[in-house]
């Protein structure tokens, strides 16, 4: 699990011929790397396979496509039309995902030539970043736990509690921004830590499997969320619905380009950037992070070399939970500014998406950033696809889970594309059962 992207191509059987000019050797080395089963290639091909899977689903469930294929039973001449209709439908769906999450080329050209309509043109990419910001934070928390060999399936619950705690601080205290915003952020972290501590302590001292505990805790936190948004101190005054208090303007993460631009991307991106730097430092530069990775790679060796396994488990769950809580808070503070009964439920459950993001990003901070952007784009673009083509948004989640299924099974991808063995061994997550 402590894999690091290979800096150079090590010696091996697929080493290119050591002759010829330097540029040729370099190209050849790149070729070997990118036709092998190196993690980056696997991830890219998994994304491709996921998109193909999505295309198959669109083609087999869209009524227009099915009608076109039915016509070939009457006469063969319908075949080209059927193929064309299939590709048109799949193409328009994926085009809608792209224009809804990155940029609409027409609008971009219009803005570029006339200098007008920039807010509209930039809205899709701004939305993608808005969605990706908390996702990066929570996924890094999950990724750190994965690197230590721990599953934090409860990130969603921790994010919910963090969001509630942070929103409570942000709405019930009234302070100047310089104090209020940090306190709100700390409130989110503390809420998540509190919720993450329990599975950690139980795992460390009683051996309770963290998957079951965190899974169960998710449901406990949902019940608590519904209780909180309907309880007198936290409910929006004058409301009888499940809506919490609105945060003070001094506690929110303001839009990066001002409220007038209409772009929602907020100062939260700096929080996410800080988390990425923190995670990089923790995992690659600190001795504590080294302990984490050793514990994840080989618990027996870690114990033998004097690493306190219990402490590692508890600390990792505190960090992981704290980051999840921070993510939940960033989600509230940068979008709605209040919590309702549907907070982070269903498609919005970033804590569940985080598991898939962390796996796709191979638990590395930068890998997680790219994976978050991709999944955020799929989610945001999916909304546009639903609006413009009528294909339900849930397709985005289906594609995401297909991608992760392939990422979690590198051998399968390797077999499908007949890839060579990687220059460095491909790393699979350590598999373990309930007992360990």
């Amino acid at each position, binding site marked *: 699990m402590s894999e690091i992207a290979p800096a150079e191509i090590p010696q091996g059987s697929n080493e290119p011929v050591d002759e010829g000019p330097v540029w040729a050797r370099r190209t050849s080395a790149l070729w070997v790397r990118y036709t092998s089963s190196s993690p980056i290639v696997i991830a890219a091909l998994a994304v491709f396979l996921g998109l193909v899977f999505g295309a198959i689903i669109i083609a087999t469930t869209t009524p227009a496509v099915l009608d076109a294929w039915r016509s070939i039973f009457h006469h063969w001449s319908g075949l080209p039309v059927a193929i064309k209709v299939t590709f048109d439908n799949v193409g328009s769906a994926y085009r809608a995902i792209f224009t809804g999450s990155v940029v609409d080329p027409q609008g971009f050209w219009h803005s570029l030539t006339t200098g007008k309509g920039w807010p509209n043109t930039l809205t899709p990419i701004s939305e993608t970043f808005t969605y990706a910001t908390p996702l990066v934070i929570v996924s890094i928390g999950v990724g750190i736990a994965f690197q230590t060999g721990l599953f934090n399936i409860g990130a969603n619950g921790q994010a919910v509690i963090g969001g509630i705690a942070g929103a409570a601080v942000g709405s019930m205290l009234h302070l100047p921004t310089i104090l209020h915003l940090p306190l709100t952020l700390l409130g989110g972290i503390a809420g998540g830590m509190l919720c993450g501590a329990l599975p950690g302590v139980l795992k460390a001292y009683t051996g309770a499997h963290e998957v*079951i505990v965190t899974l*169960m805790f998710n449901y*406990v936190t949902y019940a608590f969320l519904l209780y909180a948004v*309907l309880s007198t101190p936290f409910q929006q005054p004058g409301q009888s619905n499940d809506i919490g208090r609105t945060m003070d303007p001094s506690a929110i993460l303001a839009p990066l380009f001002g409220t007038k631009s209409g772009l929602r991307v907020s100062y939260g991106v700096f929080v996410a950037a800080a988390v990425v730097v923190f995670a990089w430092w923790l995992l690659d530069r600190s001795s504590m992070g080294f302990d984490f990775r050793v514990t994840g790679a080989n618990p027996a060796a870690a114990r033998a070399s004097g690493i306190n396994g219990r402490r590692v488990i508890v600390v990792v769950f505190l960090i992981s939970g704290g980051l999840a809580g921070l993510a939940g808070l960033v989600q509230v503070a940068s979008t709605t500014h209040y919590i309702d009964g549907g907070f982070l439920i269903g498609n919005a459950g970033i804590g569940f998406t985080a598991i898939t993001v962390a796996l796709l990003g191979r638990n590395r901070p930068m890998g997680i950033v790219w994976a978050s952007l991709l999944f955020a784009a799929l989610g945001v673009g999916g909304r546009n696809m639903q609006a413009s083509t009528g294909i339900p948004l849930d397709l985005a989640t289906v594609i995401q*889970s297909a991608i992760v299924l392939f990422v979690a099974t590198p051998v*399968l991808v390797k077999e499908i594309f007949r890839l060579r063995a990687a220059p460095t061994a491909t790393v699979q997550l350590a598999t373990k059962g309930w007992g*360990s």
Partner: protein
Amino acid sequence: MSLVSTTPVATTTPIIKSARTRVIAVIMAVIGLFSFVVFGLGSTVRSHAALSFTPLNLVNAPWHLGSLTVATRWTDIVLSLIIVALAAEVFIRQPSRGVMPRFGIAAILFLVTLLFWAARTDGPSQVNSVNVTSILVGCSATVMVLVFGSLSGVMCERAGVVNIAIEGQFIAGAFLGSMIASTTGNFFYAAIAGAVVGGLIGLVLAFFALRYQSDQIIVGIVLVTMLSSLSSYLNLQVFTPFPNFNTGNLASNLAIPILSKIPIIGPVLFNQSAFFYLMIVLVAVVSFALFKTRYGLHVRAVGEHPRAAATVGINVVRVRYINVVLGGAIAGIGGVAFMATQGQFQVGYTSGLGYIALAALIFGRWRPSGAVVASIIFGLTVYLSYELVTYQVPVSLYFLQMIPYLITIGVVAGLIGRVRPPAADGQPYLRD
């Protein structure tokens, strides 16, 4: 790794066990005292409530018990004291067997006291009669689904494969079941379709877990995510434009001639849909197959020590494939059964029952009989936490909804009894 972690447990078992028995006793005592103080002494209003035993679903019941009016406050006090007495008995005698059943009795008594208390509490819509029969009949549907799910888990995990995808199999079974039941009007075909789709999902899980040694927990969770969003996707693509695929007719009840006339128990156990009887048969078949047959011995060997099993000539991978597919089929039928009691397929309407079934499996210590007991306790709790809304209880029901999950956390943490999964549960098997 597992070797290292089990060694200290084995040496200190007697001490830990007595300590844990005491912990259970203390938890039971807390429950009993809580219901004594809060339900027995706390609330003063309207101290009488009626228990009615209206025979449901039976047109010509030869019996009519009418209703039994009891002084609920005294009943609550007596029941709480029974819980406390049970706790004291466990604490002092520390029986080597039967601690968990006592805990189960205490949990159910607690729910009954809660119900009495709810029935006499003032509220905008005063309900002061508790229809015992309707509560039991209502919760039997939830219990049935949980039993299907946890039996599926028993099948898979006894062979050493963690099936976290039970929830996904429920969803797929319910979706396809609704489609087939609506088009053919026959739940037999629906059940077969559910079994096939559940088995296929099991096959996918087994394929990734056994052929590629992928992490079973990750594959399971990803499968649940995929199936729940796929069902939501197909719901919009298929069921919304073609509502006649999702008419949601319920499975009809088959009353067993004489037995169904027994007061209270009759309507609950002997006037149910075919799925309920199938569930009872499956519990018996799975228990028998796992613990009394040669094949069951193979399965358990594969789940405990695959290498040893392979040495004596058992085909580990084949046994695991068969069990995971069969387990998936059982969970798929469970999804159809859920749909047959709830009606129309809706997005997210299994609401995590698959995970509660997983919890029931653990609480029931990976045994079919234990899974049934756990399913009854969890099913009653889940059902009551939603049903008590009509009683206008002055406490938040959301805390009641947490109970099954908190119990499960207590169980896996070893606070309530000691559980031990099959030794090779979730471990990949690498052929030499």
